[in-house]
């Protein structure tokens, strides 16, 4: 079984739109949305959720006011400044600041701190017109996005196994931090979607370094390449220097926005150069996987 992860470093390069096209072009694939923080792929694929599962991860400290003696030890030991004194002079854990490290629970001399498991979000198993999909939603202001990403990947792999699918297409998160690391470690192939801007180039270089760090082979697509052809050429050169391969360019096309508005992938929406380019790119990606 192979797993392709589409990432971009920088947001807004068209990563999800292109993943959607791959989903439409692929046969016998499982789809997974690992951009759990701001998941958008479902807006193109209209999944029908068939199973919903709570995502419980980590714990959260809660002080039982009645048992607290107000000694202040927990506040002193919390490295994340997550314990505060309220206007009424009570000790309280700020749920957004708490990292769930359990230190306060350990040091409280009267054991006045509870430590219940944290409900951080949900993940879903769904049907789409292009096949099964695993996706998720992280609760607002929640930690553990990396673990939710790992859950989505694990469940997608299990489904692929069960349904005898040989390919998983993953829409990855932006950036290079914990959810991205969780998305790419152990993947078969990365497809990096960038754009010909200084920021795009800059962010792509960091993503390629990350790919190298975790030894995942990477291919690069320059989307909206005609906005700055000179920069596109530079990016393709940088790609080779970063031990990756440029596999194609896609022109700027307003139809991407139109497709999004119609809840369709670009390959369903229209024909033309952009669609031809994406189709060729997809064939190349498949060849690379062999």
């Amino acid at each position, binding site marked *: 079984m192979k797993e392709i992860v589409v990432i*971009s*470093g*920088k*947001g*807004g*390069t068209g990563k*999800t739109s292109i993943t959607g096209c791959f989903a439409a072009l692929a046969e016998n694939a499982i789809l997974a949305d690992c951009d759990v*923080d*701001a998941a*958008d792929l479902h*807006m193109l694929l209209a999944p029908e959720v068939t199973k919903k599962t709570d995502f419980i991860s*980590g*714990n959260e400290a809660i002080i039982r006011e009645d048992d607290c003696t107000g000694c202040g030890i927990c506040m002193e*030991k919390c*490295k994340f400044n997550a314990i505060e004194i309220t206007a009424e002079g009570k000790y309280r854990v700020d749920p*957004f600041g708490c*990292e*769930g*490290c*359990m*230190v306060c629970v*350990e*040091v409280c001399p009267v054991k006045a701190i509870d430590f219940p498991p944290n409900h951080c979000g949900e993940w879903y198993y769904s049907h789409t017109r292009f096949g099964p999909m695993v996706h998720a939603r*992280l609760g*607002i*202001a*929640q*930690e553990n*996005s*990396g673990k939710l990403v790992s859950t989505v990947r694990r469940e997608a792999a299990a489904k692929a196994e069960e349904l005898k699918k040989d390919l998983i297409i993953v829409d990855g*998160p*932006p*950036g*290079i*931090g*914990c959810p*991205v*690391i969780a998305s790419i470690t152990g993947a078969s192939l990365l497809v990096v979607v960038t754009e*010909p*801007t*200084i*920021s*795009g180039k*800059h*962010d792509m270089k*960091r993503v390629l*370094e*990350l790919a190298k*760090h*975790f030894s995942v082979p990477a291919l690069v697509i320059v989307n*909206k390449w005609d*906005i*700055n052809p000179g*920069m596109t050429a530079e990016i393709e050169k940088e790609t080779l220097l970063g031990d990756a391969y440029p596999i194609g360019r896609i022109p*700027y096309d*307003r139809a991407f*926005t139109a497709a*999004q*508005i119609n*809840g369709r992938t670009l390959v369903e929406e229209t024909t033309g150069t952009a669609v031809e380019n994406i189709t060729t790119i997809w064939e190349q990606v498949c060849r690379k996987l062999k």
Partner: protein
Amino acid sequence: MIIAVASGKGGTGKTTVAVALSLAGSEPVIYADCDVEEPNGSIFLRPEVACTEKVLVEVPKIDEEKCTSCGKCARFCQFNALVSLGTPPLVFPELCHSCGGCEIVCPAGAISWKKVPVGEITLGKSDGGRISVIQGKLDVGSSLAPPVIRQVKSYIADDALTVIDCPPGTSCPVIESLGDADYVLLVTEPTPFGLHDLKLAVETVRVLGLPFSVVINRFDEGDSGVEDYCLEESIHVTARIPHRREMAEAYSKGGNLFDAIPEMRALFEGIPRIIERGVEEK
């Protein structure tokens, strides 16, 4: 006053707006780049760099002479950063949150601390010294954005106007960046993805209880979903930036909003004052 510029989705023009806010006025301003995974503000502000410093976090160091291999530290660690199989524990520094718990529970006093780098801070000046540019950059391969963001924020002075360029999304790095903000500008674009992610961002700032308004980038492209939503939810739209091919071109070369659309400057110059008045009234 601290204005945080955020967006649920990346690539909506968040950095463009944060940079424009910093460039528009004539007062001293601090531009703090908290998008530490992909810091891009410096591409547009081109600061003269005054100094750089490493962001260091403390991770445990085990004294194998003192360690009795009891495994308490590993059982305590909530982040699986210590693994002990009847041996002195192995430390996985990339998983450690530096909470200090293992040292507290170790009965043998076998744990001390060592510093490891996770990122870098760059301090510089732009626009003839008027704009102080503080950039945080996460080391490639490190997953610990929050400590880098905390260090960027440690340079923020209370009295000066500060513009925070936040990371995209709604999870811990964003919450960390929004921590001390007085006001949030949410940048979005009028597409279904833009609207979907704007809703998440609005939920986030509402949960945090921060006053906010919206900036719509490329407002004349796409559909009316974002405008309708803002109207329904009584969310103020502070600025609408038109779509211009010149903007895309200027941006691709590291140019700023006013290089492409000079008439936007007056609007951006007024934004901090409008916000300040609004915040004071509250």
